[in-house]
């Protein structure tokens, strides 16, 4: 309204959310702050705001992920967007419709935004280069999963009141983890101290420059931490030769009430889910309840609402003018 002084705008997070590389503390904070507002929408009688009314979001999921797909779907629907789920079967992929043909078709159908989940690292950026609509990376290969990291940050901020200065241990298969990569970028932007805890076989080479400290032993790695983030271990890692067996992994890196009590009694435990009980997190009675998984799920919806709102809330021609974090700068 013209009577009021112009509202200050949140910083633009781009036309796309492909990576958290180059994402500043200011931008991350604005996303988390917006998510705070959207948390309330879930408590309204009508759990919906009309902010994306008339817009269409396509969930393009090449990997099955009920969790992430439903979260994006609910988020978009609470914003009143129309949502279409496209889950190309593996057969149609191998039969040859290429990713670039698929996304161009989706765009031609009138999509305003695409959330893509794909097994290939770089797939989200690949899509963003080929369409004019907004693209959200819903997890690409071993590269990034930005909205998961943002919801982890949101959970941490809710539980601990801040992120800056906290010690966060990320435990598990760092090598193949897009969740870890996005979290490392976002947590370091927010000023957290990050420790990676993993056997050498599950750590990538070439991470000397990362803002992390490396630990191979769980007890030392989580000692005194404020947050312990357990990563999901793909069960085929054992057959791939990365670890000798799941039970050995569980005994060396599995989180239990006892280990936490002794080494990180104040820690909030996060897990991107779904949990392999008895592998990353011990299956003992009651312990799973202490893990913030269900909070993470709820917060995930509001964080994704915030992301979709910030990307798609404006008019398309304006969004196209917003500058995106340059890929060449290190994503």
């Amino acid at each position: 309204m013209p009577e009021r002084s112009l509202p200050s705008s949140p910083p633009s997070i781009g036309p796309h959310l492909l990576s958290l590389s180059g994402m500043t503390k200011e931008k991350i904070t604005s996303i988390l702050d917006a998510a705070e507002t959207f948390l309330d929408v879930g408590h309204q009688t009508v759990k919906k705001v009309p902010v994306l009314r008339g817009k269409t979001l396509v969930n393009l999921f090449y990997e099955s992920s009920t969790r992430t797909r439903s979260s994006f779907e609910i988020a978009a629907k609470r914003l009143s967007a129309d949502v279409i789920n496209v889950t190309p079967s593996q057969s149609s992929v191998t039969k040859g419709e290429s990713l670039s043909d698929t996304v161009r078709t989706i765009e031609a159908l009138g999509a305003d935004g695409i959330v893509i989940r794909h097994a290939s690292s770089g797939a989200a950026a690949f899509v963003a280069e080929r369409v004019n609509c907004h693209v959200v990376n819903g997890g690409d290969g071993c590269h990034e999963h930005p909205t998961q990291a943002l919801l982890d940050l949101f959970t941490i901020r809710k539980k601990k009141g801040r992120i800056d200065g906290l010690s966060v241990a990320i435990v598990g298969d760092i090598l193949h983890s897009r969740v870890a990569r996005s979290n490392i970028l976002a947590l370091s932007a927010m000023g957290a101290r990050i420790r990676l805890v993993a056997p050498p076989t599950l750590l990538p080479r070439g991470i000397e420059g990362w803002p992390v400290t490396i630990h191979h032993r769980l007890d030392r790695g989580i000692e005194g931490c404020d947050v312990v983030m357990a990563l999901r271990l793909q069960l085929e890692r054992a057959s791939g030769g990365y670890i000798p067996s799941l039970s050995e992994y569980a005994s060396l890196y599995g989180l239990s009430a006892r280990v936490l009590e002794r080494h990180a009694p104040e820690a909030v435990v996060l897990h991107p889910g779904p949990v392999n009980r008895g592998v990353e997190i011990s299956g003992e009675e009651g312990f799973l309840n202490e893990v913030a998984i269900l909070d993470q799920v709820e917060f995930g919806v509001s964080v994704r609402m915030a992301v979709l709102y910030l990307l798609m809330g404006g008019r398309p021609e304006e969004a196209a003018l917003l500058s995106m974090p340059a890929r060449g700068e290190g994503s």
Partner: protein
Amino acid sequence: MKEASGGNLLVRNVHLFDPSEGISKEGESLLVLEGRVASPGSSVPAGTPEIDGRGGLLCPGFVDLHAHFREPGFEYKETVASGSRAAAAGGFTSVCVMANTNPVNDNAAITRAILDRAREVGLVRVFPIGAVTRGLEGAELSEMGALSEAGCIAFSDDGRPVSTALMLRRALEYSRLFGKPVIDHCEDMPLSNRGVMNEGTVSAELGLAGIPNASEEVSIARDLAVLELAGGHLHVAHLSTAGGVRLVREARRRHLRVTTETCPHYFSLTDEAVRCHGTHAKMNPPLRREEDRLAVIAGIRDGTIDAIATDHAPHAPHEKEQEFDRAPFGIIGLETAFSLSLELVRDGHITLSELMTLLSARPAEIFGLPHGSLHPGGLADLVLLDLEGEWEAGRPGYRSKSRNSPFTGRTMKGRVAATIVGGRVVFEESRP
């Protein structure tokens, strides 16, 4: 191409430059009679075609030890015709073409078919490389005798390494019968795992599966040990790592009969290029770290690396326009190789004479191929170079059928003005 009836040609106003013959003379003309360099004082027959060299450098034509012309089987990527045009435009007068066609060049019929096509096209000299094993499957030796007889000049399962140390031993031993090299794509496949780019800081950040340097080094070490056992001539293809250069250098010191090549991309780019060029910077071996790039240059300087080859590997746009891990390995290189290599001279790493040796005399020598010479009676396979001419790679297009190159758009200094094979002009740049 009809070698017997070479052409007549008069090239005026050139700087004759043939370091292997110790020739460097400015302001000269060169007369070619029936595909051979004429003796001084020969009279110019009436009707002899002429080109004005405009003061450019006239040198022996380039010899590429490693290219993929994709015919038969993958004509949508490249053909003998389009590959030959690309080669001619890049100053190459002889090109060795790899066996991983479909069907594989593991029998004399395919070899003859390739040579027939090359003859029909009639641009550059094409030398087929036969497969080491039938179908490149690594199980049984191909009929090297028949292949050799039909015109294969070397053997390789390129695209993949020779399967086992035992198979390599047999191949090296048996190829001694024909005096022809076994070329190995040195890679330990299980160690490469499902890697798609160099393993290092960039792969860690992009979340792409890495191919470690050790993958090349382990394989070279195996090959060298087998070479010592079996004898024969081993040629290591597309050397890319510091460790690989070190291993070859050390083997040469022990007088093992190993030769090697590298490609322009390994001394021009590092794995950082993957960030901006995507699948156009995806090849195997992958672009490595800066240390490796410098080690490759050091290997070129000290002669450990014998030749600059292109590993010209065309792929269609729809194949490269895919997710990084799904796209095939390989980039085209024939049309950019000279200009990129000239940067080594401009940067002071090697002399122009050394560059000419790396692109022409030395590769021809190690594979026993005919090559151009400015000496009277020499084969008139020549290239006319404009060292100062600037151009932009890939603009307006490539002569290759494919355009998968990370160098597209790069401003290059130094270009090929004309290419002459057996006294016939097979390429001449359009000039105002």
